[in-house]
């Protein structure tokens, strides 16, 4: 399997496409920050793989690459049904650790768009800085990189078909992971 990062750049994306992708990522972040999860789910492809592997500290001499082996433990290793189940939990009214609500801000930066072999799919890199704060002064900062595949659906919308989230931490610095990244 060729790693996504080694894929040749076949052509440059248009400024129009760059702007469209950028605005799509910002919109996605706003929907998550304002808890519009159902609208966010509409931005996902039915065959999405939403994946955030666990992180191991290994020596440079160790050739093991565990970051793209979905049989291993992962913070997220979801299909669309699993994501919908997570959203369903948030809407039960008894998700106690979200009441009062957690405040989130996703900052999305370092956006790059690459064309792929398929005219309707784009590879998109971005970084996130996600700050969350709840109750008096319970706060976490989650930072990492994302590698996405966005697809243009028959109606012309961009939908997220694949996301690999690479966290910068190895021990999650917080009591839970209650946020989509």
């Amino acid at each position, binding site marked *: 399997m060729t790693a996504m990062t080694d894929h040749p750049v076949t052509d440059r994306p248009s400024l129009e496409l760059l702007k469209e992708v950028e605005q799509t990522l910002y919109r996605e972040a706003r929907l998550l920050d304002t808890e519009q999860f159902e609208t966010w789910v509409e931005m996902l492809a039915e065959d999405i793989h939403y994946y955030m*592997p*666990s992180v*191991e*500290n*290994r*020596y440079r001499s*160790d050739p*093991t690459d*565990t970051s793209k*082996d*979905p*049989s*291993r*433990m*992962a*913070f*997220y*290793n*979801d299909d669309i049904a*699993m994501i919908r*189940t*997570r959203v*369903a*939990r*948030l809407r*039960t*009214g*008894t*998700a*106690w*650790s979200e009441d009062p609500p957690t405040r989130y801000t996703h900052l999305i930066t370092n956006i790059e768009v690459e064309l792929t072999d398929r005219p309707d799919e784009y590879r998109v890199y971005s970084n996130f800085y996600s700050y969350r704060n709840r109750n008096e002064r*319970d706060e976490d900062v989650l930072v990492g990189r994302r590698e996405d595949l966005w697809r243009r659906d028959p109606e012309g919308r961009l939908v997220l078909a694949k996301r690999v989230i690479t966290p910068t931490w*190895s*021990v*999650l*610095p*917080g*009591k*839970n*992971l*209650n946020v989509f990244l």
Partner: protein
Amino acid sequence: MAEDYSRYIDLDEGWVDRSIFHDEDIYQAELRQIFARSWNFVAHESQLPRVGDFLTTYMGEDSVIVTRHRDNTIRVFANSCPHRGNRVCFADVGNTRRFTCNYHGWSFNTAGALLGMHAEYAYDEKDLDRDQTRLQPVAKVDSYKGLVFATFDPDTPSLQDWLGDYRWYLDMLLDNEEGGTEFVGGCIRSEINANWKFGVENFIGDAYHVGWTHDSGTRAVTGGQPFPPADMTNSYHASVNGHGWEFGLDGFGDIMVLGSQSILDYYTGMKPRMSERLGQLRSQIFGSIASGSIFPNISFLPAVHTFRTWLPKGPHKFELRTWVIVNKAMPDEIKEECAKRVMLTFSPGGLFEMDDGENWSNCTTTNKGVVTRRQPLHYRAGLTRQIHDHPELPGTIYRGQYNDANQRLFFQRWADLMNAESVTELPDRRGATPAAARI
């Protein structure tokens, strides 16, 4: 005079003093009296299949390296150079022939013995005793059906005695099918601002919190149904030497929590074999709503396939390390499905686990209040529900899954260790051994 830690626990009336979740001096005593003398879980054998494989973990707050040495035995020693004390290994896992300190290049083999160092001419012959200068080994390493334990204290009773008849229960987790168990690759780690005992006592017996804390997760996986009421007749708490297991007898409740048809089909197909292997009763216990903890800081949900340790990081913080434990005999696609479903339910982002951390965190931090701290905590559920006549269940048995019995008996063992001058003098907390459960 030594402190009497029994005064923090009122076993007969069911009260626990909040200081044990807050006080720095008590925490330091726990590191000396409990973690430096207990059998600590350090690895599953499947994590170290080849010679030279290693991982790093903690026994209490002591950083240790666990290796498979060239004689194929598992070795455990301190991750600290005898020269200036620096860590000698910074990787979580890997394979190596030596551990070399970054500071002066002192190098040690996979048994912890000194191999050499940078600029050896710095030392004259009498300066350095090469046999004595090594990474400090633990006193004993032993394993039970794949789980590797280590202790720093040579006087600690054998692992077999330490676990005792709890092995009758553990076999449901570790030996319910030919071939035993293995860990799925990887480890999920998170850091929670809570006292380590809140994790242990939750898993050792707190079935009670599930229907309330985890209502949202339950409704999410059941399409809106709440958690079913407990059957208080056909469910139990069992405690042996401070280890505990709470369980029902329905055989499938926890398997349903995973919400996977293929895993359900797998167990439906193999339950008759499990029954032949472990007997009818244990094949009914396995799969029910259940949880367990091995004293002092190891926990699991048997049929949910999550296995974890609560590593203490001060009185108000622990690091949670979780793994997925599966049967070796499972087809690969079932193992993968188990891993995915554990991640969906019992990882920091899991539908169920998500709501635990905040509770434990606030159970800990409220005790900063000096007046708040004076109020003892209520552990009185099921005070009078002990039974003595169960024909098969070993240990101290209480009827009814919603119960604080295992928690009380965990704190009793905690006080035993905290008070004991020597681990050879621990009181007998084995409970009963019915003939049917003899191992």
